[in-house]
């Protein structure tokens, strides 16, 4: 099955859409079908692979990249509207 999202590290809880994903589309990560997208996600943007609770870290490359500012459901778009930089990030 052709993937429409890629996950770089096993422990990541988000994948990157490699093409425009529409709400309801099957999200296929690294060849495996996982679930339906909860909303539209642009190419290059992040889709939550699991529920991420408010205050929980979003992981890419196995590392925290941002922190959720509200509960994020599986299949939702993850970006600056529902996350904040982790401590130590330049953009504060």
């Amino acid at each position, binding site marked *: 099955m*052709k*993937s429409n999202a*890629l996950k*770089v590290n096993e422990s990541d809880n988000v994948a*990157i*859409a*490699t093409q425009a994903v529409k709400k309801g589309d099957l999200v296929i990560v690294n*060849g495996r079908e996982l679930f339906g997208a909860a909303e539209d996600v*642009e*190419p*290059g*943007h*992040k889709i939550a692979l699991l529920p991420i609770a408010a205050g929980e870290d*979003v992981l*890419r*490359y196995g*590392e*925290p*990249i*941002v922190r959720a500012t509200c509960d994020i459901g599986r299949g939702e778009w*993850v*970006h*600056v509207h529902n*996350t904040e*930089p*982790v401590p*130590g*990030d*330049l*953009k504060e």
Partner: protein
Amino acid sequence: MEFLGYKREDGRFGVRNHVLVMASVCCANGVVEAIGRALPGVVTVTHAYGCGCGPEDLSVARRVLAGLIDNPNVGASLVIGLGCESLNSESLAEAAQCKLAEALVIQKAGGTATTRRGIEVATKFLEKMKAQERVPAPVSELVVGLECGGSDAFSGVTANPAVGAAADRFVHEGATVILAETTEMIGTPHILKRRCATAELGEQVERLVNEQEKRVRASLGELAGMVIAPGNIEGGLSSITEKSLGCITKAGTTLINEVVEYACRPSKRGLVIMDTPGYDIESMAGMAAGGAQLILFTTGRGSPAGFPAIPVIKVASNSQTYNNMPGDMDLNAGSIIDEGKAIEETGREIYDLSMRVAGGEQTCAETNRMAAFGYLKQGPSF
């Protein structure tokens, strides 16, 4: 594993056997370019300074120019000076250890007549280089510089992780890999610290990155957030940490063995960090002066820029860019997205291509003669 390279007297090996014709100061650029037009086989190095600046900038310029002359890809150098400049051409040529090097001074040799003399000298050098044969060289003799330029959302998903896989292989074979562009480590000092071979190195890296962050804040002020640009956010990056993680992934997973200053030669093998700006042109100059014989350059939006005397291998992060600039890209990591190719497989392809380039295969930037050169300058002109 080995490649066929040019052996130098100091025991290092070059992947090319270039004759460098270099200006010690901008005023001499014209003569260098004239020699280059007469002899397309030489590599010309022209630049904007060599004078009119303070001692620190001069010292960096000297280190870069001397480092290029010293680079194992260079078999012979002709340095053209004006005569009154701060960065003296004769001292540059004299400093070239165990190598063919000569200096010509425009004010002594009669102005543009220096061009004629320069063509004679460079022609002799070219003949000598042609006579030299490649010999077997261990992979461990390679110093591979890493660069990312014109990054997009996919650079950190395709090209950079694939280069990281190749970097791990190089380190495994005993070679040296240089991670540079300190600006693109902002947000990750705690991660890099963990990956250092010693606690002391960890502190050094942390200090380096934090100082760079301070400099960025001090000079860009409110616009410091520009380090993550609106284009990056539109493209999907949510934080500088995310952007920098995507950048450092091209260094692979091995331990960091050393931290070196801009344009200095690493003394250790394996993965090392060099302090350079994120600006591609100056970053490549630092690594070339540090002895890199090859540069792996990932790009999302595309860039044709190569570097004098050093083959630069362009790895596109996506097929659109690869297909849009077919004559400038050496490898398409976009197949990770389009064909579901594994990162490891693309990493192997990058490694194999690097080895072929080391043995003489030309990169697009070399074929197109797209060398770009400039070095770090931080102070004012006078």
